[in-house]
């Protein structure tokens, strides 16, 4: 309690709660726009433990992507505190603590698939022999072996996004931040990639923070679902999703899955009606 009251610096917080990978305390972010200030995030409190799979879900404008970008040090909060691996987001970024997967694959078109996965490794100064090794290992992890020499445009959208996941994993960060990575893909490819992502998560024991606007996707993947609502962007409800580690796509027909999905839907609706009252 005192720790929170003192609004401690990242370091003391790490001592107090060493288990949490991400700790967010009373965090707010106000964008100054030409139409006046916009409350993108308001009084966010959140803890993400090691090895968890946490999804942010909510309608557009609820600040889910902004919160992810704050964790990644791509946006600066206006007030409140946040720690990543017990450090400030900026320190964590400089230590290359996380891998980030964007909405689009964002592969560099002039680099081959192998070249794209090599990019972070080159930036981080990893020697060539090891780069080669890691490229092969991570391409295998996302089932893209044999596509090393292809250029991005020669691959389907789903394969491109898999390559971008391999790129994020290539330097072996413990934290994976994913911003609607499958949002642009069709349902069938999406189901398939969701299954693969779960396997990957089980295999690598990474902590994943995942932004989505799909309820089934969130329930299927997560250990914890953060339901957010817009204007101002805030956390409406945090729902535990204890479906166990062994999940196949069939789980989506089980009563438990449907019950959690229902709770998420209710949460979203409630958050939205609140919004409608404001309008």
């Amino acid at each position, binding site marked *: 309690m005192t720790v929170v009251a003192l609004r401690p610096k990242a370091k003391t917080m790490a001592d107090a709660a060493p288990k949490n990978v991400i700790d967010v305390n009373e965090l707010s972010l106000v964008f100054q726009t030409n139409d006046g200030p916009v409350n993108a995030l308001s009084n966010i409190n959140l803890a993400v433990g090691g090895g968890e799979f946490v999804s942010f879900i909510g309608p557009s404008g609820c600040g889910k992507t902004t919160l992810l970008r704050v964790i990644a040090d*791509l946006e600066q909060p206006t007030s409140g505190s946040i720690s990543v691996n017990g450090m400030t987001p900026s320190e964590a970024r400089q230590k290359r603590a996380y891998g*980030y997967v*964007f909405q*689009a694959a*964002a592969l560099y078109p*002039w680099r081959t698939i192998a070249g794209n996965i090599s990019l*972070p490794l*080159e*930036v981080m100064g990893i020697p060539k022999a090891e780069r080669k090794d890691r490229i092969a290992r991570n391409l295998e992890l996302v089932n893209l072996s044999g596509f090393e020499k292809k250029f*991005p445009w020669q691959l389907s959208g789903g394969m491109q996004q898999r390559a971008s996941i391999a790129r994020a994993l290539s330097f072996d960060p413990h934290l994976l931040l994913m911003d609607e990575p499958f949002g642009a893909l069709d349902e069938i490819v999406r189901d398939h990639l969701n299954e693969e992502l779960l396997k990957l998560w089980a295999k690598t024991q990474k902590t994943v923070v995942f932004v989505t606007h799909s309820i089934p996707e969130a329930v299927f993947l997560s250990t914890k679902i953060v339901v957010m609502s817009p204007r101002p962007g805030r956390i409406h409800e945090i729902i535990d999703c204890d479906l166990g580690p062994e999940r196949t796509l069939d789980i989506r027909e089980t009563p438990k899955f449907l019950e959690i999905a229902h709770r998420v839907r209710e949460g979203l609706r409630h958050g939205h009606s609140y919004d409608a009252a404001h309008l």
Partner: protein
Amino acid sequence: MNFIRNSVVPVGTVLLVILVLWYAFAVILNAPFERDQAARAGTTISTSQLITNTMKQERPVLPAPHQVAEEIRKTVFDISPTSKRSLVYHGWVTLSSTLLGFALGTLLGILLAIAIVHSRTLDKSLMPWIITSQTVPILAIAPMIIVVLNAVNITGLLPKAMISTYLSFFPVAVGMVKGLRSPEIMHLDLMRTYNASKAQVFWKLRWPASMPYLFTSMKIAVAISLVGAIVGELPTGAVAGIGARLLAGSYYGQTVQIWAALIAAALMAAVLVSLIGLIANLVNRRMGVRT
């Protein structure tokens, strides 16, 4: 087969139209002189005789294409390239200053673009001057450049090349500012998540992303470099080069010589632009551009 349909036929058709028009105008423009000659001699001249005569005058108003072709053939192949009457000799003089000026201009343009992209202050302060520099009439500033550089003992190839540089740095600077700023936000954010240095962002993202812009602006730059080199030869009393050839031709009314020099310059520009296109294609292939 495709090459013939897509390139040879359309280009050939236009060339044919130009040649027909050229012959027609040669006849029309050169006919008054023939009629005067006939009137002075007190004879009349038949139409067929008139047409034949208009195409073999010594100093026609507009030389016929075959006269120009013959002049080019003679001054390129018959005369030794070391002779001052050789078009190859003059062409080489202009080409060497074009290439030097173009190389310097491209380099200057790239360096300016890099500075502008990385510094807000330079963006605000340099850009207006770069644009203003191109509004100064080159014909007025060319002799000044040569006089000033002569005063500080820079003579020979460099002063002329400077005029090409002055013209060619502009499209490269403007194109490269755009090119170096062309990466998507997401691609830049990605580099930020890797904590990449400015140099790494430049070499691994901005530079490769700017390649299409570089080659497009280089094509423009090489063509105006050639114009710059010729213009540089005109007002400065140059003794050699395509510009000197044009000037000498106009002093002595050697219209055939002028046209031969003009065509030679145009061909030279076409070859230079094609060469850059060729290099661009090679680079594109290496960078996996979809064909």
